[in-house]
């Protein structure tokens, strides 16, 4: 247990400071800005709207389509050529799976709810920030939802369980486990779970409990972002 002091001085279970806002992209049906530490995500929701190509339409329900993208200048290293790479495709897919359990699109057959997530700056935890932003944006768009979804990474660095890994911790020169999760508090279920690194089953389960706790904290911030928008713009409602 050599990793006793976190690189940025945070406590073991401490998440980075968060700023969250709803309704930041005026053209979108719903949108959000979500910043956690130095990771920034924008999410915009367009829909329900007609789905093209037509062969993808589902007459029994609307579908959710997520698109995650890091802007070319968003990574810690060199510029990344624009265009979706394999990693972005995978993250788009797991993001969709993370949000799907809480949205109810039965009222919108043949339609699509498009969620676009773009990041201008990242410092690890980007897919989780994207999911948090998307969750706020979907609610902001008035999509029928059973709950919000919150997401954060948990993990271990040199045997110590920590919450909300930043880039330095992900890349730490020791045994690391990086576990992004998405959590639905009302059902106590995870809709995203991935892991890279090395961990035992028991440590994993312990880490997941800490992750859920962090998600419960984050969800209050997400709710607050929505409340703030609708309190201020009371006369804009309708």
């Amino acid at each position: 247990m050599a990793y006793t002091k976190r690189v940025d001085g945070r406590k073991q279970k401490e998440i980075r400071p968060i700023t969250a806002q709803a309704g930041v992209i005026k053209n979108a049906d719903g949108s959000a800005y979500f910043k956690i530490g130095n990771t920034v995500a924008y999410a915009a929701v367009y829909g329900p709207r007609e789905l093209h190509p037509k062969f993808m339409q589902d007459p029994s329900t609307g579908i959710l389509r997520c698109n995650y993208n890091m802007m070319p200048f968003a990574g810690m290293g060199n510029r990344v050529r624009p265009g979706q790479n394999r990693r972005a495709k995978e993250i788009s897919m797991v993001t969709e799976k993370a949000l799907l359990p809480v949205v109810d699109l039965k009222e919108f057959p043949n339609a699509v709810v498009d969620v676009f997530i773009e990041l201008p700056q990242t410092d690890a935890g980007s897919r989780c920030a994207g999911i948090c932003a998307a969750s706020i944006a979907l609610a902001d768009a008035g999509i029928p939802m059973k709950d919000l979804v919150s997401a954060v990474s948990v993990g271990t660095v040199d045997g110590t369980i920590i919450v909300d890994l930043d880039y330095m911790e992900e890349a730490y020169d020791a045994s690391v486990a990086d576990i992004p999760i998405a959590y639905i508090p009302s059902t106590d279920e995870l809709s995203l779970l991935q892991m890279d690194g090395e961990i035992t089953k028991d440590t994993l389960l312990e880490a997941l409990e800490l992750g859920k706790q962090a998600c419960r904290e984050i969800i209050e911030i997400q709710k607050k972002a929505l409340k703030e928008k609708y309190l201020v713009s009371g006369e804009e409602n309708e």
Partner: protein
Amino acid sequence: MSKKNPVREHILKALEKGVRPDGRALTEYRPVEVTYGVSKTAEGSAIVKIGETEVVAGAKLSIEVPFPDTPDEGIIMVNAELLPLSSPRFEAGPPGIEAVELARVVDRGLRESKALDLKKLCIKKGEKVWSVSVDICTLNDAGNLFDAAGLAAIAALQDAVLPSYDGAEIDYENKSNERLPLSKTPIPITVLKIGDHFIVDALQEEMTSVDARLTVTTTADGTICSLQKGGDVAVTTADIGKMIDISLEQAKMLREKL
């Protein structure tokens, strides 16, 4: 989020009786077979059969400039093709999301377990390193491509022999007597949840009724090196614990096939 469809109802009824469409028990694999050295042009190769699912993996070695942030490490890359010849549901064209996810899950299993000692693949720091490309191609998709692909990839790496290298040129025709520096055997096991039941080695017809899946990649000492949850339904941590237990048990069996 249960889909009211007759296939799913039929599968659930059978699962309640402890049976699968093909008569297997819930945590029973179809027969597994690994054949090494199936492609003379690959530096290492293997075909894995799980029931009627058949997957071939080939490893090719080349010498490349290392990545700037890892000047003393070799390179490993995994690619997967879900070939149209292996199933009516695959179309010709660049890898779709299913192929991308498959490749990335197998890649992470190999990479995160540090099965391959990348430092030993360094020839000259900052200038030359061995680069290992593993390509996984499906020959017949009868379900459970993840596990078959993961097993084939590690088998291909085990089969690989380095070509001769005189410092200037690689001679692919003449092999050296060196193998890849492989110290672990990461095995992915995909556990699926249908209703309240957990199954392994799903047939393609079972896949359409699946609520959630968890692919757990572990090494022989029980360390988990990669997790990937899929499926539309969320799961509890209790579910996750059960799925990991099942995968640890099945990984032992699969590892013996190598």
